[in-house]
């Protein structure tokens, strides 16, 4: 099986892990990776953590990135620019609800564009 990957970026590693737990209760197979907190695990976001999470989540079918507030989006953009890849998309949706919807859609083996479109339709 092959699925679109999902990355959860939050200022708090607990938030990212908590959302992962909630999704995992329902969706088992979709690659979901977290990038929560700074390199020192303080509150914040880290370009390096985001890069690593995207790499792990990408099983060849692209990755959708969800983020919370403040620096999260800016650091996500920088991480993606550095990776010079075009199969990673930042999705404008609430972190929890958006990622949850994306995980369900990805679990139906839809491609990256379709999953992103489904989330955007719901929340965009």
């Amino acid at each position: 099986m092959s699925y679109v990957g999902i990355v959860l970026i939050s200022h708090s590693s607990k938030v990212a892990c908590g959302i992962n737990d909630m999704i995992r209760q329902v969706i088992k197979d979709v690659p979901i990776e977290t990038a929560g907190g700074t390199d020192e695990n303080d509150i914040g976001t880290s370009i390096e953590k985001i890069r690593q999470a995207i790499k792990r989540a990408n099983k060849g079918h692209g990755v959708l990135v969800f983020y919370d507030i403040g620096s999260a989006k800016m650091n996500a953009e920088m991480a993606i620019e550095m990776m010079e890849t075009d199969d990673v998309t930042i999705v404008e949706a609430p972190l929890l609800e958006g990622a949850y919807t994306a995980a369900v859609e990805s679990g139906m083996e839809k491609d990256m564009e379709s999953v992103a479109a489904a989330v955007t339709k719901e929340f965009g």
Partner: protein
Amino acid sequence: MELTVQDAVAWIKKSNEKIQANKDYLTDLDQTIGDGDHGINMARGFHETAEKIAGQDYTSYADVLKDTAMTLMSKVGGASGPLFGTAFLKMSQALQGSDAVDHQTLTSGLEEAVNGIKQRGKATEGEKTLLDVWSRMADFFSHETDFAGEKVAEEAKSAMEQTKDMMATKGRAAYFKERSIGHIDPGSASSFYIFEALAEVIEGGT
């Protein structure tokens, strides 16, 4: 007058000293209208940057700024990392190939930094962010014909103070809406120290 590679090193060193000395003040500013980590983040990032630069033997002004940019991006954390990092990176790119930096070259570097901040932060002037200092400084430099140290510091201070009466519409302070009025923007205060450091380098103090 031209700025040399040693001046670039001195600029970063002085910026670090000022940010370390005002770390608690910057954090206080951020506690009022933000998440209260600006001083800590900037102090950590600039400390790492100063360490990195002190251990290198540079041949160009641009390389000093490039290392500054890369270290700030990865070490500051928060939105300030990407924003200050981008400012220094764009400046570095604009200064590439210049051994010594004259007034016109630095001016174009600052203009590129402003474009970078706008693009990265999707920001415009008047939103109570560091852009309000950087943009006014680029403007100020473009109206001068040569380096004027004291005036650089005065202009930066006035630009920083102007953020006090603004209402934040970008960044974490925007959540505070009207309550953000009456407080200096922390990113603008950090930017003031960076320009004050530049002014001292121009004046020739080390």
